[in-house]
């Protein structure tokens, strides 16, 4: 009996050791070739599919925008809009006709040359009836698109739209004959799609026929994780070179104190909102919203979730938008003021409301914090946890809620407060007018001045309570350079990344 036991144990151990040994050898081989290395990127945002008009999620933008697909214009990591596939543009004096000339010699990955017909079809993909693009409504201003020749696109607008060129930076130019864009691609970018192993990795390889400056690396592999700890471990063991967006605040200390890693604190556009249903009592009263805004210590909340990272914010506009203004002093934290406002609203003894809370971080933590803060001024919060899908149907579509927590990721999205039909139901004709006028402004100065005014009004009226601006943290191996650090619109341009 004893001999059998020993034999079995030895066999098992040998098997395990053999497996370890075999793997150890492979590791050295992959990292040896650093001249044109393949960059390993770690992310928690796996695309659902590869089409940004079919609800692929922010992972699609992260992996493919600017890497595989390009637009007529691009939004740089610094937030500027620059021509990309557009060689030149002309705008008529009335601001209604845009004429774009395309860059010559641009080829799709399939080999087909880029023509104006592809651009027309690409814009129409976004505005199509079944399109799920988040930018769809921004392009509803387009009246007609004509293609006088293969290199020219003429777009007629229904009315002036100063953001039109900016909005075009989100429109991917796709081969109009391409099929199956949810699992394959045909773009013009510096990389073509390698292999997509769903649930695990998506690889991009350098496209040899690229029209512009070629990528500085041989390719990129996005590794997807559902667990933040697993993602950090991958970085610690050099399985990935860079993490696009660190979501685990507790893990930052181990990288901060380690010279092998660089923690980049970039610009973010993601805001955590306590959104009231401004149409229903008691949130239809300005004083009640102001009271809540004054009763919650945003800085303390931010600190408890992100430590020293992140930024307190007084309104919907993040510092990277051109019309940013520091409004943190408006309805600032002051429980005494909160109580006065409640009394002024005829609710001296407080009230109670239900807070629909998405079931993923940081919403549950924030909800608990808000509950304890509001209890101090006599307001009772009932936390109701819901899934993202429920949020979408209950809150966003049916408006069946009192207040909710939600993260809003887009840049330049203060304009939603000009739409009285948006889910939070904020309605101020003056603000609506200013936001409409801003879009039809002739100059960016005029646009900026109008949006600043609207932004100040919504802050004063506490249309929502803007709790804080998320940090945008890219953690990378210190051997890496050339990676983007600002998570604008969740994009991640990989072509300049170099590994030393």
């Amino acid at each position, binding site marked *: *009996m004893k001999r059998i036991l020993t034999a079995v144990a030895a066999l098992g151990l040998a098997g395990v050791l053999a497996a370890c040994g075999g793997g150890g050898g*492979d590791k050295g081989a992959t990292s040896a070739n650093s001249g044109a290395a393949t960059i390993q990127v770690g992310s928690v945002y796996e695309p659902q599919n590869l089409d940004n008009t079919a609800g692929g999620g922010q992972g699609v933008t992260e992996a493919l925008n600017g890497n595989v697909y390009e637009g007529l214009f691009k939004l740089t990591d610094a937030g500027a809009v620059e021509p990309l596939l557009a060689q030149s543009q002309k705008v008529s004096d009335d601001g209604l006709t845009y004429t774009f000339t395309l860059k010559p010699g641009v080829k799709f990955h399939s080999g087909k040359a880029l023509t104006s017909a592809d651009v027309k079809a690409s814009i129409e993909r976004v505005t199509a009836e079944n399109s799920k693009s988040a930018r769809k409504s921004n392009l509803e201003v387009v009246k007609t698109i004509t293609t006088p020749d293969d290199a020219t696109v003429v777009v007629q607008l229904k009315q002036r739209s100063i953001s039109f060129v900016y909005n075009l930076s989100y429109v991917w130019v796709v081969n109009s004959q391409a099929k199956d864009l949810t699992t394959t691609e045909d773009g013009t970018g510096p990389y073509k799609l390698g292999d997509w*192993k769903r649930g*695990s990795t998506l690889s991009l390889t350098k496209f040899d026929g690229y029209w512009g400056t070629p990528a500085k690396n041989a390719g990129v592999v996005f590794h997807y994780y559902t*667990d933040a700890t*697993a993602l950090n471990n991958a970085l610690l063991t050099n399985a990935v070179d860079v993490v696009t967006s660190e979501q685990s605040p507790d893990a930052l200390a181990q990288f901060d104190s380690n010279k092998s890693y660089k923690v980049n604190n970039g610009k973010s556009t993601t805001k955590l909102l306590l959104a009231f249903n401004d149409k229903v009592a008691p949130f239809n009263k300005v004083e009640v919203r102001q009271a809540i805004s004054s009763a919650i210590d945003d800085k303390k909340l931010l600190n408890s979730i992100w430590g020293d990272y992140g930024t307190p914010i007084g309104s919907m506009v993040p510092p990277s938008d051109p019309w940013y203004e520091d409004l943190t002093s408006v309805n600032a934290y002051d429980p005494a003021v909160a109580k006065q406002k409640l009394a002024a609203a005829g609710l001296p003894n407080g009230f109670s409301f239900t807070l629909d809370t998405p079931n993923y971080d940081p919403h549950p933590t924030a909800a608990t914090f808000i509950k304890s803060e509001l209890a101090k001024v006599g307001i009772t919060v009932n936390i109701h946890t819901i*899934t*993202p*899908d429920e949020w979408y149907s209950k809150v966003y579509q049916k408006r069946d809620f009192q207040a909710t927590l939600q993260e809003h990721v887009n840049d330049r999205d203060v304009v939603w407060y000009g739409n009285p039909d948006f889910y939070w139901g904020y309605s101020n004709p003056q603000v609506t007018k200013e936001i409409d006028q801003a879009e039809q402004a002739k100059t960016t100065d005029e646009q900026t001045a109008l949006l600043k005014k609207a932004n100040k009004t919504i802050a004063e009226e506490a249309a929502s309570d803007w709790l804080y601006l998320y940090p945008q943290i890219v953690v990378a191996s210190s051997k890496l350079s050339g990676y983007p650090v600002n998570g604008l619109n969740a994009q991640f341009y990989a072509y300049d990344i170099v590994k030393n």
Partner: protein
Amino acid sequence: MLRYLLRRTAILLVSLVLAAVVLFLLLRLLPGDPVNALLPVGATPEQIEAARRELGTDVSLPVQFLNWLRDAFTLDLGRSLINTLPVGPEIVARLPVTVPVTLSAFVLAILIAVPVGALAAIRADRWYGPIINAVAQLGIAVPAFWLGLLLITVFALRLQVLPAGGFPPDGWSSPGQAIEALVLPVITVALVMSASLIRYVRAATLEVIGADFLRTARALGESPAGAMWRHGLRNASVPVIAVLAVELATTFLGAVVVESVFALPGLGSLLVRGISQHDYPVVQGVMLVSTATVLLVGFLGDIAQRLVDPRLLQRGAS
């Protein structure tokens, strides 16, 4: 035996259909509407209707169920609502991770649990008998994710001999890396599984040690080890096989946690993603395949038990 086989097969089929009904109904009880996944923001009622038609949710529940069952029997599990890909191939693509992890862990757990459990019983009077028992008891209380994190910390972060997670992009085409990626997950699952198995093996062995037939065998001149080997093991294995079937099934379904800790693209992570996105066809597909596997393993376990101990057949028949 044939009669038993027929009866057991009938039970298997009935349970499969029942399981399918329960699965189907439970998913329909979840709040939220799956058509949301297909619709743009601010969809018109016409678009909603069209999406329902596309999904097949415009007809009554019983009809939906029959349609789904009919398709499932022809191995067509529908298409994902999120990425419009067929669910069947998606599930098949996850098996090269889940099946090796489950089976290797299962074999490793048996290799650990059978000798250790038997030793704990046979040597119950020695100092290490109770210690094995205590350690196994403690092991049952250890959650798989914690053990996984512990192994990652030691072998991946400290010693740096194994990867912390992930699976090579080209899968089993890089066998070295694939095996390397699965070592820690397999050990994690195997250790958790063997903890409870050790206790079952020990209990079964203890029962056999005190049995009359073993004393008789000894009286007929067999050595203690010989008697144990020839008569004891077979008798002790009967209850253990039943437990093994349950354990194998649990591991197959319970891979979710381990896959998440080790970032493995297996069935578990597909299921989690499907649930979080309300991707009904994916959830239904994965659950149907898993349930069928579990029922099939139970079926095979019962047959194996009767092959080892034909007395069960007579008991069952009466």
